[in-house]
């Protein structure tokens, strides 16, 4: 088994900066943006993107978290997962542009669950998807709008995202 680092600390920072600029560009500014992370590491990434978008856009952009555990279609195939908190900013999501943030985009099933979860919370005008790594192998017709890095991988490989707030170090590694 070998582990290879595909993104270092500076690469992650650069990727998030670029994603933040792209979000502002596609939304034509910071108005009505809400950035929601999918636990666990998506929330950390969403907070960082929220800070960057607020800085580049010149006004505070609300961030939050969206837990999808109870909307998953594979609950009975895994050990019981503990749900994580969902925190929607006070302004809600109705009529807003919601940017979902996840660390690794793989099968697309998490995002499918996230879209269902969003629907129960409100009705956003637009939903976009940002991911730090897109490793391919989609099971569903879902594609990201903002990607940090496209990472062609085989099914057997594992992609790990480490973030300072959670893991103590910053790196994206691929294990094969």
């Amino acid at each position, binding site marked *: 088994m070998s582990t290879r680092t595909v993104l270092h600390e500076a690469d992650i920072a650069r990727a998030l900066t670029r994603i933040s600029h792209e979000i502002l560009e596609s939304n034509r500014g910071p108005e009505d943006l809400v950035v929601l992370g999918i636990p666990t590491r998506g929330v950390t990434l969403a907070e960082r993107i929220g800070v960057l978008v607020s800085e580049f856009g010149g006004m505070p952009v609300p961030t939050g978290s969206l*837990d999808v555990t*109870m*909307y998953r279609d594979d*609950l*009975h*195939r*895994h*050990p*019981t*997962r*503990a*749900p*994580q*908190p*969902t925190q929607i900013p006070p302004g809600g999501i109705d009529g807003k542009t919601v940017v979902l943030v996840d660390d690794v985009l793989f099968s697309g099933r998490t995002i499918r669950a996230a879209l*269902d979860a969003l*629907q*129960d*919370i*409100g009705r956003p005008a637009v939903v976009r998807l940002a991911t730090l790594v897109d490793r391919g192998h989609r099971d569903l017709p879902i594609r990201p709008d903002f990607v940090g890095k496209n990472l062609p991988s085989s099914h057997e490989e594992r992609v790990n995202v480490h973030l300072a707030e959670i893991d103590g170090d910053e790196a994206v590694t691929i294990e094969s």
Partner: protein
Amino acid sequence: MRHLLDTKTLSREDAIRILDVAEDMAETQQREVKKLPTLRGKTVVNLFFEDSTRTRISFEAAAKRLSADVINFSAKGSSISKGESLQDTAQTLQAMGADAVVIRHGASGAPRTLATSGWITAGVVNAGDGTHEHPTQALLDAFTMRKRRHGDDSRGRDLAGTRVTIVGDILHSRVARSNVWLLHSLGAEVTLVAPPTLVPQDVSAWPVRVGYDLDAAIADGPDVLMMLRIQLERMNAAYFPTEREYSRTWGLDPMRMDALPADSIVMHPGPMNRGLEISAEAADSARSTVLDQVANGVSVRMAALYLLLAGERDHEGETR
């Protein structure tokens, strides 16, 4: 978790896990759409051999909010009244494909028999058995205490240092038993106050202090005062002379309520006998958590059903 049968054997970690998941469930109940798709396709049977309104409705609401199908089965008007045994009833439910059975039974230990007999593969939730236990009631009580104490910061916490006084018919109360064990494993200090005739004989083995004087217990300044229902059907058995005397000596009247510390809460598992163990003033005061308990009951039962039913099962039916 495979079954939820009692709080005596429930570990501190599992108890906190249930309470934490209940926090998440409570959050989803603030949403525009309260129904979650989580248990779609699962069948929950409410098997009630004893009368119950709130517990059955609470379990029914919990299962429906998680999109499970609910079958209500009460002993009255069913084959039970024709003499069908628990085994045959259980096997009928198994054949119908029940994934979880919520059982209330007059005999202590009936849920454990159901869970360990091999008659069914479904997860079993004890909704009250004889004078043994009523674990979801104790869990919702602990949830309510934790919420009052820690608010939004409740996740992951236990009840260390919380002083709880339980007053009333301890002898016949499964709610008291479940609370004693759960509160003990969560680090709370429990005091029981009752007429000597309503204290069980084996109470010396329980991790509690026992008192007979409600005024002295209130002067001690408990954080939580939990009043138990006096079961009127037991009045003929001469545990105390008259209702009036019970109410004077062990009832929570307005004067006793005012003697409590300002931030103490008053709990009651319901249904209340207003004017007997609790006065209307106390029941309707801002200290009273009676309605919080009802609302929290749905969240706690959603959490229990989620943890029992959502995960993968291995070949022995164990939810991992």
